[in-house]
C-alpha cells in the first residue's frame, strides 16, 4: 500500500445538463519520501486534483487514501501552498504565518512559535516586509508568504500548486533549493504542480503529465534518474537530463496537438458579401 493513493477518481462539476467531468479515471500512487511532479496545460484540472488530495473537495467517484485512510477532511499532515496565495488580507505577513503556527503547535511556548514564524519569514526573504499587509505586497511576495505559511506548519506531505509561478528566476531557484532541503532533511513527501518542465526535472523523482481536459487523465510517468543532490549548473549538460526533457516536451506537444485538432469545430459562415460603395 502506497503512502498516498488515488484510485479510479472521477470529478464532475455541476449537475444535470451543466455537468462537466473535469477528471476521469485518475490513478496515482505516491510512496513515502517521494517527490512527484505533475505537469499539465492550464485549465486541465490540476488545482482540482490538488484539492481532492488535500481534502477540500470530494471525488464524484473513486477514493483518495492517505496512509491507508480515506481522505474526508483537511489535515495538518498535508500542507498546501495555494496557487492563488489565499492570504488573509487583514493580517500582516507575521500574523498570517503566526495563525498557522499557532494552530499546528498549540502546546509550544510563545517564544518557540515566535522564533519559528520569524525563521520562515527570513527563509523567504520577507523580513523587511514583516509588518505589511498582503495588499501592500507584490504578487511574488504574496506567493512567498504562502510558501512560508505552508512550510512553517511542518506538514508530512507538502502539496504545492504552481508555487513558484510569479517569481523571478533567481528567487525561484533559491526557493526550489529551500523546498528541496526541507523535503530531504525531514524526510517529507512532496507533490508539485508545475508548468515548467525544467523545474520538474530538477526537483522531482517522477514527472506525470495531466492530459488536457475535459475528462483529463494522467499520462505515462517519466522517471528522473539523476542522482541527488542535483547541480543546476551541470544539469544542462547531463545527457540523462537532456533525454528526459526532450521526451516530456515531445509528449506534451503531442497531446497539445491532439487537443487543437480534436477541439477544432467547424464554423459555418453566413453567405455575405462585402458591400461596395462607389
Amino acid at each position, binding site marked *: 500500500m502506497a503512502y498516498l493513493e488515488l484510485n479510479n477518481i472521477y470529478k464532475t462539476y455541476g449537475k444535470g445538463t451543466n455537468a462537466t467531468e473535469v477528471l476521469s479515471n485518475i490513478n496515482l500512487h505516491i510512496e513515502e519520501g517521494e517527490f512527484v511532479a505533475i505537469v499539465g496545460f492550464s485549465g486541465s484540472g490540476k488545482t482540482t486534483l490538488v484539492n481532492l488530495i*488535500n*481534502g*477540500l473537495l470530494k471525488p464524484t467517484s473513486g477514493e483518495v487514501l492517505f496512509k491507508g485512510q480515506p481522505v474526508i*477532511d*483537511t*489535515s*495538518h499532515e498535508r*500542507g*498546501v501552498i*495555494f496557487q*492563488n496565495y*489565499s*492570504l*488573509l*488580507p*487583514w493580517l500582516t505577513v507575521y500574523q498570517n504565518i503566526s*495563525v*498557522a503556527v499557532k*494552530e499546528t503547535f498549540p502546546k509550544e511556548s510563545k517564544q518557540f512559535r515566535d522564533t519559528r514564524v520569524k525563521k520562515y519569514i527570513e527563509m523567504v526573504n520577507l523580513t523587511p516586509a514583516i509588518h505589511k*499587509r498582503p*495588499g501592500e505586497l507584490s504578487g511574488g511576495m504574496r506567493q512567498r508568504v504562502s510558501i512560508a505559511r505552508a512550510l512553517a506548519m511542518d506538514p508530512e506531505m507538502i502539496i504545492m500548486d504552481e508555487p513558484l509561478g510569479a517569481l523571478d528566476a533567481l528567487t525561484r531557484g533559491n526557493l526550489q533549493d529551500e523546498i528541496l532541503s526541507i523535503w530531504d532533511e525531514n524526510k517529507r513527501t512532496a507533490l508539485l504542480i508545475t508548468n515548467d518542465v525544467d523545474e520538474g526535472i530538477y526537483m522531482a523523482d517522477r514527472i506525470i503529465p495531466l492530459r488536457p481536459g475535459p475528462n483529463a487523465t494522467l499520462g505515462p510517468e517519466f522517471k528522473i534518474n539523476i542522482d541527488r543532490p542535483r547541480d543546476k549548473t551541470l544539469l544542462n549538460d547531463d545527457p540523462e537530463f537532456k533525454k528526459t526533457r526532450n521526451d516530456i516536451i515531445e509528449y506534451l506537444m503531442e497531446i497539445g496537438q491532439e487537443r487543437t485538432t480534436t477541439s477544432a469545430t467547424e464554423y459555418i459562415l453566413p453567405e455575405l458579401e462585402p458591400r461596395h460603395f462607389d
Partner: protein
Amino acid sequence: MSDRLITIVRFIGLGFLEPVIRLARGEEAKKNLTEILKKIVAPIASILIFLFIWQTGSTALYNKEAAHRIEKAFNEQGQEGADAMALCIESGNVSCRPNTLPSPTQVKASFLSLLKDHKIIKADKKAFKEKTAEINKKRAEAGETLIVYTGRPSFVDQITTSLKTVFAGFLLAIFIAVPIGIALGLSETLKSSLNWLIQIFKPVSPVVWLLLVFMIVKTLNKNSDTDSSFLISFISVGLCSMWATLVNTIMGVSTVDKDILNVAKVLKLGPLQKVFKVILPSSLPLIFTGLRITLSVAWMVLIAIELLAQSPGLGSFVWEEFQNGANDSNSKIIVAMFVIGIIGFLLDRIMLTIQNFVSFNKN
C-alpha cells in the same frame, strides 16, 4: 510633519483643507490656488447663492402674504380697515405680522435668541442646584427622593436629549442586528426560514414601529413610575434603523471569499475561531457600511418619532414651536432644521472615518 497633517485631514474627511496646508508650505502655488478655488471658494459661492435665493424667495412670500391680508381686511371692513392693516404690517407689530417662510436674517436672530435662552436656563439650573444642595444632602441621608430641576429645557438640552436617544437606539440596533446577522449569515437554514420576516418588516414605516413599541412598552412598564417616553422612542429608533445593518451583516458573513474559507479549513480552525478570526474580519467592511446607513436612518426617523411620542428632544421642539405659533416660531423651526442636518452630516462623517479605519483593502 505636515504630510502627516495632510493624511489626518484627509482621513477625517476634511480633504478640502489640503491645498491650504500645501500653499502655506509654499508648494506649487499656482496648482494649489486653483485647488482652493475649486474646493473652498466655489462651495462658499454656492452657499451665498443659496442665501440669496432664500432671501428673495422669503421676501416674495412675505409680500404675497401681506397683500392677502390687506385684501382680506378690505373685503371685511372696507378701505379703512385695509389702510389700518397696511399700517399695522408696516409697523412690524406682532399681531398682524404676515406669517410665512422666515428670511435668513430672522433665522439668525432666532438662533442667537435660542443661545441666549440656553445661557439663562443654564444659569437658572446652576442657581437651583446650589440652592437645593443642602436640602438634597439631607434628603439623601434620610433616604428620601431628591429634588430635581423641572424647568423648561433649553434648545441645547433638547439636542443633547436627541443625541442620547439616537445613540441608545443605535446601540440597540447593533446589539440586535449584528449577532442575528452573523447567525443568519452562517446558517442557510436559519436564513431561509427567517427571510420572510426580514422582507416584511424592513419596509414598515417608523410611525408603525412607534405604535407597536408603544403597545408593548405601555403594558410592560405599567407598574414602574419611570418615564417610558425615552424608552419608547429609543426602542423605536433602534427597530426602524437596524435593518440595513442586519441585511449587510448577513450578506457579509454569507459571501466570504471561498479562498479565505479554504484557508480556514486547511488551518483547521475551530468553529468559534473561524467566526472570529476569518469570517468577521472579512465581513467587517460590509457590516460597517450597514452601520453607517443605520446611524443616518436612526437620526432621520428620530425626529419624527420624538414628535409623535411626545418625548423630549429636537422633534418635540419642532412640534411645540409649530403649535405655539409665536412670531418667531417659524424661524426657530428652520434653525432646528439646520441643526438636524448638520448633526446628521457630522454623524455620517464620524462613521465614515471609523469605516475607513477598519477596512483592510484600502490602497
